[in-house]
């Protein structure tokens, strides 16, 4: 169920309509080819051999038996590779490596995490590749490891990342924290723990690489970022223009396909063999093959006056970065900026640190640090409301940011802040309260958030797009953007169709090929629509302007009097005076009017924030909204049933309301798993939950019918005032569920996931305390 609230009245014909997405029919019919569905003649199959230990020294590795196996084309170990590193390319657009993110491609000597690749095999069949991997003889000497970020920062801890395991640190010093707490009538302090979680996209990492006649390494791969061709080229030792990444429609990303996964292995094997090579991860490989969501320990100390005004917030965040750096410093920064929540706080003190351990490495995950921060700040608001005797929503309302208020970084928020409107809508949609039934207690919770959209402003983010109109009036959009399932590509078609007055079916979109589509940046950070949507808008507007001018000349009027719609150019005041769009295009073509445009859209560019105070600008803008839930908790078994779950978000402008609702519903399910059932367990760094029978994402039996409410302030920086919804949809869900469970049972579980067992134990402790 979707409800849309629109505050402005703009004459949009394509944008804002729930059109069937352009990618949907192919997917429904089974015609869509994903990266794993491509094969080539003479293709080899690859396998990665992984370390069974989390912390060890590789004493010896002997691949002679594997190489001797008939059908094996190539076995590579670190000894076969030149001494090059893989690194995390930040930002993709400039190729500047801002952080010490170097890592070995294959283990040379030191194993730092369970699953770290030791060797690569390519063979005539998958079975032979797997058998060859098993024939590799190696000896690992276990070394002392460190599996907890607090332990990792103690003197004498085993060093995973030199010099001191600290891989990221951020501070905020705003206002006077001592004065703020002195003014407080009530101080609430709690510590929250979040867990490692897995993206659990249904399509495991997969790719196919070949070297062409120009010595270009072509890699068709399931990725969120085709611009990884740069670090890939550097890791294999060729110029940037000798690696081409071809995307495909991606079977889910959520941040898990944001870093390089199979690409470097494929490039090395294709280079070494001169043959096409396919590498498809198994589900277990996938559990080892990409970074997880960071577990956080967050201590939140919040001061309130008796009338519910926040006087000060002091937050300490410790994140487990795992064995390699990847995007940890940035995830930590997002958490730092989001730490106090969508509230106006004048006195803020944040200390955030990410430490390396011998656990699985952690990196991007939908919500990117802000999701963990939300778990803490929203629980704090409910705990404070209880302590102060103020209604939970009223307490939030008294503290919400308003447009023009300064964020934690001192930068003012310029767009609409509709937190209260969203919260009210979400709560009202819960409807009548379900009654308790014996031991089954019903509770409700709400959570609000602040989530950035667009990348960090000092990364100088840009996106390019090309729009062209063929002589017959059909439209082409070219953009490097990857579509990871949210309808990124279809939205671009809708924007071009809107501005050129044609239907979505009249637009063909070519995307995600680093050689031929203009580079659009990453499909991450809720930036796809904001950045590439704007690039397509600008390109289409340029063509539209030329077409309107030509049509105006034909009609003998000013361009402002002409409009394009329904594949016609017509007079705004006299729609009967019109000409077919294809005739106008043919006219333009014959006269050499330029029918295409290549545009670069630039986000705001800034320098870095002050490292000592955290003051400055971090993001282009922020999205606000709320999620409300009703849960039933069986107090005897601890089982939780989510009865109702409603997301209400100000998306600025929905390009496709069905696609927005899909994000909200999917975020509701993912957040439910984060709150209740999902956890990657590591014992001394070893993964004990390597499959979907241990790692439990919600099934169709676990979910209510989710409700989505779309609010449109048209105040965002995206096309037509859009903000973004990819990450915001997820961020408030888990804290809303945590608050609802606490409401139901009267005690709080401070550690995610809130399993039946933790609920039972919390109730038992509460009973013992009474």
């Amino acid at each position, binding site marked *: *169920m979707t409800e849309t609230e629109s505050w402005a009245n703009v004459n949009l014909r394509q944008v804002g309509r*729930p059109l*069937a*997405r352009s*990618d*949907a*029919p192919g*997917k*429904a*019919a*089974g*015609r*869509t*080819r*994903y990266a*794993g*569905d491509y094969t080539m003649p003479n293709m080899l199959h690859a396998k990665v051999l992984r370390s069974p230990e989390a912390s060890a020294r590789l004493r010896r590795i002997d691949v002679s038996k594997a190489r001797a196996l008939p059908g094996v084309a190539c076995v590579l170990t670190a000894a076969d590779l030149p001494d090059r590193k893989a690194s995390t390319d930040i930002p993709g657009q400039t190729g500047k490596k801002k952080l010490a993110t170097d890592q070995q491609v294959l283990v040379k000597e030191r194993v730092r995490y369970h699953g770290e690749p030791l060797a690569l095999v390519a063979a005539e069949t998958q079975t032979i590749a797997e058998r060859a991997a098993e024939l590799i003889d190696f000896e690992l000497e276990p070394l002392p490891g460190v599996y907890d970020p607090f332990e990792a920062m103690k003197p004498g801890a085993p060093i995973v990342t030199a010099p001191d395991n600290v891989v990221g640190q951020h501070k905020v010093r705003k206002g006077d924290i001592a004065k703020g707490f002195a003014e407080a009538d009530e101080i609430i302090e709690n510590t929250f723990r979040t867990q490692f979680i897995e*993206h*659990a*996209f*249904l*399509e*495991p990492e997969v790719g196919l690489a070949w070297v062409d006649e120009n010595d270009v390494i072509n890699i068709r791969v399931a990725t969120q970022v085709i611009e990884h061709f740069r670090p890939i080229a550097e890791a294999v030792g060729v110029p940037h223009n000798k690696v081409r990444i071809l995307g495909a*429609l*991606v*079977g*889910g*990303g*959520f941040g898990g396909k944001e870093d390089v996964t199979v690409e470097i292995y494929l490039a090395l094997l294709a280079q070494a063999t001169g043959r096409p090579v396919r590498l*498809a991860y*198994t*589900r277990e490989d996938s559990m080892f093959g990409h970074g997880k969501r960071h577990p956080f320990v967050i201590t939140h100390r919040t001061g309130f006056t008796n009338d519910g005004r926040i006087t000060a917030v002091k937050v300490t965040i410790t994140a487990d970065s795992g064995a390699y750096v990847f995007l940890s410093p940035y995830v930590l920064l997002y958490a730092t900026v989001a730490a106090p929540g969508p509230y106006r706080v004048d006195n803020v003190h944040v200390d955030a640190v990410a430490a390396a351990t011998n656990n699985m490495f952690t990196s991007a995950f939908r919500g990117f640090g802000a999701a963990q921060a939300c778990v803490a700040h929203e629980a704090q608001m409910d705990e404070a409301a209880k302590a102060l005797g103020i209604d939970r929503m009223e307490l939030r309302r008294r503290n919400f940011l308003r447009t023009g208020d300064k964020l934690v970084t001192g930068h003012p928020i310029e767009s609409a802040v509709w937190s209260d409107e969203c919260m009210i809508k979400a709560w009202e949609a819960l409807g009548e309260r379900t009654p308790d039934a014996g031991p089954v207690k019903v509770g409700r919770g709400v959570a609000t958030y602040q989530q950035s959209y667009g990348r960090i402003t000092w990364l100088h983010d840009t996106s390019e797009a090309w729009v062209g109109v063929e002589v017959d009036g059909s439209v082409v959009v070219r953009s490097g953007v990857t579509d*990871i*399932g*949210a*309808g990124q590509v279809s939205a671009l078609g809708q924007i071009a169709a809107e501005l050129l007055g044609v239907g979505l079916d009249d637009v063909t979109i070519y995307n995600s090929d680093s050689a031929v589509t203009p580079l659009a940046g990453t499909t991450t950070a809720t930036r796809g629509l904001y950045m590439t949507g704007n690039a397509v808008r600008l390109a289409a507007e340029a063509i539209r302007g030329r077409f309107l001018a030509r049509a105006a000349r034909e009609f003998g009027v000013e361009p402002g009097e002409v409009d394009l719609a329904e594949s016609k150019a017509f007079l705004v005041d006299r729609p009967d005076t019109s000409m077919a769009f294809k005739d106008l295009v043919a006219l333009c073509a014959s006269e050499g009017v330029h029918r295409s445009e290549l545009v670069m859209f630039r986000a705001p560019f800034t320098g870095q924030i002050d490292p000592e105070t955290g003051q400055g600008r971090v993001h282009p803008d922020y999205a606000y909204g709320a999620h409300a839930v009703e849960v039933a908790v069986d107090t005897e078994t601890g089982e939780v049933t989510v009865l109702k779950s409603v997301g209400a978000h100000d998306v600025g402008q929905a390009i496709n309301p*069905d*696609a927005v*609702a*899909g994000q909200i*519903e*999917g*975020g*509701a*399910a*993912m957040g439910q798993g984060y709150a209740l059932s999902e956890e990657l367990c590591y014992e001394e760094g070893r993964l004990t939950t390597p*499959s*979907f*029978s241990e790692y439990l*994402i*919600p*099934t*169709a*039996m676990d*979910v209510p*019918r*989710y409700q989505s409410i779309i609010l449109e302030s048209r105040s965002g920086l995206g096309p037509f005032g859009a903000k973004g919804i990819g990450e915001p949809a997820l961020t408030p869900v888990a804290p809303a569920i945590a608050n609802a469970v606490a409401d139901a049972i009267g005690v709080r579980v401070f550690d995610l996931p809130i399993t039946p067992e933790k609920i039972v134990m919390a109730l038992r402790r509460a009973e013992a305390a009474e």
Partner: protein
Amino acid sequence: MRETETTTLEINGRTREIAAPPNQTLLETLREHGYFEVKSGCEKGDCGACAVLVDGEAVDSCLTLTGTLEGRAITTVAGLKRGEELHPLQAAFVKFGSIQCGYCTPGLIMAAQSLLNETPEPSDEDIRLALSGNLCRCTGYTKVFDAVQEAARVLREEESAS
């Protein structure tokens, strides 16, 4: 390597002689023969992405040995299409925005078809039970429930019209 055996299968209405080793699963067989619409998500029956119909009943093709299927009829999501027209389930998935990344979609549609073969008028609870073996990470299932209900209605109307 064990002896390769020949198994006769009817795949999407076409009879094919399939040579496969005894340890080959139907998932491997189908993809090897170009039925790429059958997706591999876990290869242990946890996710349902590989679901196909065997004689009208949905099974996980990753758990089914090809050699056990002599003479059986296999339907993949591509085999549901009616000429150029989408099958009502496929059309409803498109119409209701029930598809995002689409990787789980072939399996979901086959599981739903298996349900509707037996239960033409399913409740929401029937749909939840029938789809609980199909993991979807994008949609939260809500629009999937809508699409299955809509397709059931269309199929019932077709049934009563014929």
